[in-house]
């Protein structure tokens, strides 16, 4: 049976791939095409520096600063860069706002486009065939897979990232957070809530 697209971490099946990638790196270094130190820095960047905490800070700022929120919805690339997040796979950002009647969800049916500077690398499920195939046709069913049931009259708006525009969902600020600091609010902002497959944590779950 073929390995399942959404179970790529079954290591036993992948030893051949592991060896091939190692061989590939050896050849590329030997030919002088890549600098091994550059590889290490690339990995460290996406493993430790760039991740969904960036996006959470953007969201928390929008929840606490109306001027920033306005800027974010009008010129997300600029507003996000003002916090220091920019560059590869986030060159052209658009932020879409959830409201009581509208829930946004982001997908890339054709590959795995994702706003790296604010969310880091996409999770396996985001790149998987189940998500990519169903998000545009059955977003409510996909939300169920994440344990979320929205009222049927809430419109679900799916953004298929077919170009270089990268979308970030601005979730609704949870009730019961009046007076919270930006830092504390950011702890409520989950990665999935910024993709649209989740909701922010509730204050009591912090």
């Amino acid at each position, binding site marked *: 049976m073929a390995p399942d697209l959404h179970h790529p971490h079954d290591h036993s099946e992948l030893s051949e791939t592991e060896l091939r990638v190692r061989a*590939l790196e050896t050849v590329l270094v030997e030919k002088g*095409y890549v600098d091994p130190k550059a*590889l290490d820095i*690339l990995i460290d960047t996406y493993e430790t520096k760039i991740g969904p905490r960036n996006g959470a800070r953007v969201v928390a700022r929008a929840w606490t600063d109306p001027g920033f929120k306005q800027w974010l919805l009008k010129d997300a690339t600029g507003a996000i860069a003002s916090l220091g997040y920019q560059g590869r796979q986030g060159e052209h950002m658009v932020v879409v706002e959830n409201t009581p009647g509208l829930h946004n969800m982001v997908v890339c049916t054709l590959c795995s486009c994702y706003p790296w500077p604010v969310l880091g690398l996409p999770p396996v499920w985001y790149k998987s065939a189940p998500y990519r*195939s169903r998000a545009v046709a059955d977003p409510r069913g996909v939300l169920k897979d994440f344990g979320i049931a929205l009222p049927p009259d809430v419109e*679900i708006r799916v953004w298929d990232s077919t*170009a270089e525009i990268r979308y970030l969902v601005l979730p609704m600020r949870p009730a019961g957070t009046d007076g919270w600091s930006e830092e504390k609010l950011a702890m409520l902002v989950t990665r999935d809530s910024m993709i649209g497959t989740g909701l922010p944590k509730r204050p009591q779950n912090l």
Partner: protein
Amino acid sequence: MNGAQDMGGMHGFGPVRPEPDEPPFHAEWEKRALALTLAMAAPGGWNLDMSRAARESLPPGEYLSKSYYEIWIAGLEKLMAERGLVLPDEIDAGRALYPPRAVPRTLAAGDVEAVLRRGGPSEREPTVAARFKADDRVRAKNIHPRTHTRLPRYVRGHVGTIEAVRGCHVFPDTNAIGAGENPQWLYTVRFAGTELWGDAADPAIAVSVDAWEPYLEPA
């Protein structure tokens, strides 16, 4: 191309399986696969659209059986082989069998941060006016190019509304085949779920794609 990558609306892949506390990588080789792919763009000289085209032109059964980083590696091998940079027998052997090709540039460790922060913006100065404006009704054309395109099958032939004009961007259909950036106006086009999936669909869903002007005609 109508390849396996164009899976919007397909059935049979099963449920989405979220992974609690998912780490950025699930194996050491995935880290190397990511880094090698990013680092090889400079010496390889290909653009993002060529990378996507290389991945999606894998045989569909292979595309659907591989994990995502396996697809990346397969795409990278193809791009390198096409340019004579690394041939498959060298990877089989685990050492260089042929002299290196002259490459335009490589990614130095000291440049990584700046390169990532710069990214690769796709927006270009427009030279013509946009044909459509917000709220215009447009039809996604019924096209089936055998080369790279970013108009998914599930919207072709369907009528939607221009929701936003996103500026003028590099056109993937030409950029992927080495025929130039050929910038075109880009629009976010919103479709009702029932327009895409029929009367039985959820009436409270709407789906948008970002579509370049050559993909669209007035409806």
